[in-house]
């Protein structure tokens, strides 16, 4: 979960970097390096993905079969006919061509190779330009940005399918990749706003970063909050309205018991409250408010990931041992909660460490970008 959280942030950074080249943006030059540094964590995330990938590939420890149910699928198993288990067996048999450890490993490796290459290309050339000041590098990045965007879209979609959607191997939704992408961008823009404001407070890049850039990043954060809500609503509304059993199960477990409150909290905290808070002009132009909003959204994005992952983990624990009494279940929830926090601290810590290293290794802004002057002079009117 924490891994997906960080992954989505980095992918958001990568998306932003590619997008700026694709649109030949001028205003964003001074904030682009931060995005490149966030994307630059991807190689470390490749290493951090190993526990998941190796566990799936090796089928060890056994608990991976609780996490990814399809990993524990045995095609030869005999199940009683006309039961839910038989249906599941039948479906998993059909999906075996996609949901098998070998192909899973190959896919994940493929995504990271592509991302690594994209980060290397865009971040590398940007840093190279700091030294050479060669505008040709900008042209080169621009000309490759379109194809990179296509690669990015495909890899991100399927990464979302692989890591998150297959947690429930029977469930499916065509919009899922877009949902992951939209949430990741909310997280990324929050992180970007937070980093910029903190850098500014710490007295770094003060001449380059201005309230105008904060305002624009705030606008993008706001836009993606709304976009996330739009995508989330589209998915929920259509599944709710059609009410087909093979789809509603996914939402059903999120509407029962304590998850009901959590789902409502997600709606309020991830959309309603920030929407109201950020819709005006001034909060985006006031660093203190922006910092608070960005920190909150970062937290909410983490909660969104929690909401995507955890109901399945809980389901598998409960289904594994139906005799669990309430005290045990409560104890499990507490240890789970503790694990969540420690895991976030661990993975998040590594993420921040790598991001900080990236920031230290190159100038904080692309000092010789040919469009730097546009960005420096940029004003919202």
């Amino acid at each position, binding site marked *: 979960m924490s891994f997906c959280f960080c992954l989505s942030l980095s992918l958001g950074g990568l998306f932003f970097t590619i997008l700026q080249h694709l649109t*030949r943006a*001028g*205003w964003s030059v001074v904030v682009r390096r931060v995005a490149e540094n966030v994307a630059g964590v991807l190689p470390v995330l490749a290493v951090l993905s190993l526990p998941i990938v190796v566990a799936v590939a090796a089928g060890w420890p056994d608990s991976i079969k609780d996490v990814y149910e399809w990993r524990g699928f045995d095609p030869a198993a005999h199940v009683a006919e006309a039961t839910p288990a038989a249906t599941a067996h*039948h*479906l998993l048999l*059909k*999906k075996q061509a*996609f949901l098998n450890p070998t192909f899973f490993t190959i896919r994940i490796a493929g995504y990271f190779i592509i991302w690594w290459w994209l980060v290397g290309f865009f971040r590398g050339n940007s840093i190279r330009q700091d030294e050479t000041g060669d*505008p040709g590098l*900008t*042209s080169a990045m*621009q000309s490759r940005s*379109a194809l990179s965007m*296509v690669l990015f*879209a*495909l890899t991100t*979609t399927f990464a979302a399918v692989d890591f998150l959607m297959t947690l429930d191997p*029977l469930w*499916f*939704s*065509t*919009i*899922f*990749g*877009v949902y992951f992408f939209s949430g990741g961008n909310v997280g990324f823009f929050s992180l970007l706003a937070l980093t910029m404001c903190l850098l500014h407070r710490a007295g770094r890049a003060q001449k380059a970063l201005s309230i105008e850039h904060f305002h624009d990043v705030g606008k993008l954060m706001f836009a993606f909050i*709304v976009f996330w809500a*739009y*995508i989330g609503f*589209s*998915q929920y*509304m*259509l*599944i709710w*309205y*059609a009410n*087909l059993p*093979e789809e509603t199960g996914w939402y059903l477990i999120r509407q029962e018991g304590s998850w009901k409150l959590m789902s409502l909290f997600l709606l309020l905290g991830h959309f309603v409250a920030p929407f109201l808070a950020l819709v005006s002009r001034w909060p985006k132009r006031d660093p203190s408010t922006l910092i608070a909003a960005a920190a909150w959204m970062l937290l909410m994005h983490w909660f969104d990931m929690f909401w995507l992952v955890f109901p399945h983990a809980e389901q598998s624990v409960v289904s594994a041992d139906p005799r669990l009494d309430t005290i045990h279940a409560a104890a499990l929830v507490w240890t789970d909660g503790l694990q969540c926090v420690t895991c976030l601290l661990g993975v998040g810590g590594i993420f921040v460490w790598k991001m900080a290293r990236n920031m230290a290794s190159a100038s904080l802004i692309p000092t010789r970008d*040919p*469009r730097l002057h546009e960005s420096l002079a940029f004003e919202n009117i």
Partner: protein
Amino acid sequence: MDISGRVNGEFDNTWDDPQKRSPLVPEHYKFGDVTEQVCGVTEAWRPPKAWYVAFAISVSLLGLLGAMIVYLFFTGVGVWNLNNPVGWGFDITNFVVWVGIGHAGTLISAILFLFRQKWRTAINRFAEAMTIFAVICALLFPGIHVGRVWLAYWMGPLPNQMAMWPNFRSPLLWDVFAVGTYFTVSALFWYCGMIPDIATLRDRAKGPIRRFAYGVLSLGWTGAARHWHRFERAYLVLAALSTPLVLSVHSVVSFDFATSVLPGWHTTIFPPYFVAGAIFGGFAMVLTLAIPARQLWGLKEIITARHLENMCKIILATGSMVGYAYGMEFFIAWYSGNPYESFTFLARAKGPFAWAYWTMISCNVLAPQLFWFRACRRSIPIMFFVAMCVNVGMWFERFVIIVTSLSSDYLPANWGGYRPSWVEICTLLGSIGLFMTLFLLFIRFLPVIAMAEIKTVMPAAHGTGAHAFDYNPDEPKEHPQVSEGRQ
């Protein structure tokens, strides 16, 4: 290339240099040149001959539309070949297509405005006009397909003594509200943005009728700083209001299909996929109209090659999103393990409507791939060809979605074919007539380019141009288009 940026007499600004932004308008242009060129379109004593030819054809088609509607009303919806199971055919296809075309205008004016894409200024006005006319065509179809048209007002929630209300849970009703709102806001936005330009026309008007008409329409605009201040605030607010509308309208249209349980209709990606498709089809229509218009009225230095290239890129980008959605649908149809879903998708590609499906794929997915190549984005014939392909392809996309899914659902006993009647085909042609008639009248009588906005993106507006304000209307002018041959 000479000093004014012309190559072989054509203004070329498609070059790309990261150190310098290429100009959107030739650098030697003064504000007055823009006014002269744009006002010239409507002030000319006679429009070009091509306008008359196009207008004659359009009005004839409009007459055909009227005849078809009269025939429909007096005979009944049976004149359309709609029956079980295909209860929606050309009518809803045309509705979705026209609403879709209506998306580009507001996207250009609202979203590109918020994204500070300055090149939108040359194309926003007529794209917005196109939006409004397309939505008028779209609104026509649900109105006439209801069977008992004299009760169409029941779609509105009118209090009545029978306490009868429309079904608020039906996406079809949401459609009425969504498209209605969209039409209202788009029309307001279009008109609001046009006020300064209408005032320009008023000030230059020679005849009393023109002076009076433009005078009324320009709402007493004087160009005072206070007017501009209010205007810009209003414009920003309308842009912010229209932006969610661009997304919501076609999302709601997609709900018409996606809230059902029909295989091929019910899939969660429908809302963003429909929106991308709408923008895709809308931009193709903008290109289709812009290419002949700039040629006929000599606007090539205002709607420049770079504008066209940018539109090609947007077509490529939104076309890729549509391709992504096609791919995702196919993947999930297989991945879901649902035999009905996979059947529907295979039936589209191989069944009785395979010809429509492959037309759609080649027009929507294959043709825009040409735009990966710079040469294709700069060649007018290729651009026009691709735009026409997309126009056709997007019509077929809706046709494929609607008809294939309806014709073969869960029960084989319930399957059936569909073949449009001549009335349906003539109604479609007639709606094109309605659209073109309105558009041609617009070109003739209203400012086709947002002059005031173009001027804000010219260097002169930022105090860097050499001849910012030395425009004297009495001075004999050398028209930039005329001087082309001398280069």
